[in-house]
């Protein structure tokens, strides 16, 4: 379906560029929202190097790796859906596929959270990992898990928004009401959430594994 061109744009291409530019500016502010958490991580890694390693070994490497693969595959579906020559019907299927993969990611993440709560790794008063060690060491581990839960939960929130965006656009595509720009914008947001996870994965799961 052709998009209506608003009065202040000279052409449809210009309108699409403005929308994409707006999404990129929004994503830049999102990067700054996550920035302080990454800086907090830098602080914990530099001030409590051993504790960060000990805490990271408590995370589930297999599920974390599986989740990374899930998210990368969902991104592929989004990228394929946003190809300019894609038909609305197949684009809708691809969007549903990435929404399903996003939900699978959230389910696996929830499973990990359950294991971590059971192992007393949630950084509240009950924080008591098996290898807590000296108070300063336990404190460093707790700080790592504060960041682990804050970063993964904020990421999961963003992913949930991405799944919702996928479903809304897929529904509109099926009814012939969506425009190519909408698939493009949902895709950009999705890939941003993917890029975040690409950095979270080594930082949270792969510290001093050997």
């Amino acid at each position, binding site marked *: 379906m052709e998009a209506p061109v608003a009065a202040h744009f000279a052409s449809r291409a210009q309108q699409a560029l403005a929308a*994409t530019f707006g999404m990129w500016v929004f994503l830049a502010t999102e990067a700054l929202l996550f920035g302080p958490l990454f800086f907090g991580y830098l602080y914990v890694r530099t001030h409590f190097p051993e504790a960060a390693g000990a805490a990271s070994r408590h995370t589930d490497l297999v599920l974390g790796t599986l989740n990374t693969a899930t998210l990368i595959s969902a991104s592929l579906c989004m990228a394929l859906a946003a190809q300019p020559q894609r038909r609305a019907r197949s684009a809708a299927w691809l969007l549903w596929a990435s929404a399903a993969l996003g939900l699978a990611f959230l389910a696996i993440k929830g499973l990990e959270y359950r294991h971590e709560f059971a192992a007393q790794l949630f950084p509240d008063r009950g924080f008591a990992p098996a290898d807590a060690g000296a108070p300063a060491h336990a404190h460093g581990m707790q700080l790592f898990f504060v960041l682990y839960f804050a970063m993964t939960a904020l990421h999961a929130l963003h992913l949930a928004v991405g799944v919702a965006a996928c479903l809304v656009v897929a529904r509109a595509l099926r009814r012939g009401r969506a425009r190519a720009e909408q698939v493009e914008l949902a895709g950009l947001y999705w890939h*941003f959430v993917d890029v975040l996870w690409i950095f979270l994965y*080594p930082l949270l799961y792969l510290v001093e594994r050997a």
Partner: protein
Amino acid sequence: MNRQDKSLVLVWVALLLLLAASAGSALLRLGAWNSVLNLAVAAVKAALVLLFFMRLRASHKLLRLAALSAFATLAVLFGLASSDYATRTVYPAPLQTPRQLAPHALPLQ
């Protein structure tokens, strides 16, 4: 499947191989190089997503500028904030309780 679709699938394969490489290398004893390698792999993966999935490779300069501005701003803020943490001693504030200063030195109530 046309050429553009094929290149996207190839990028996906490359991303999965890089994921396997970073998970595998994390299990080797490389000391500090583990982190360097993992972050380098993450940077390459992020670049692949940005250039191909997010199409920065062939997009308008304005979009590349917006993407770059995020990284540039983060770099400035990281630089300023880490200079603060690297050069100052942390003194406890008078209102902090013993538990706040040494969270695990005292038994839980």
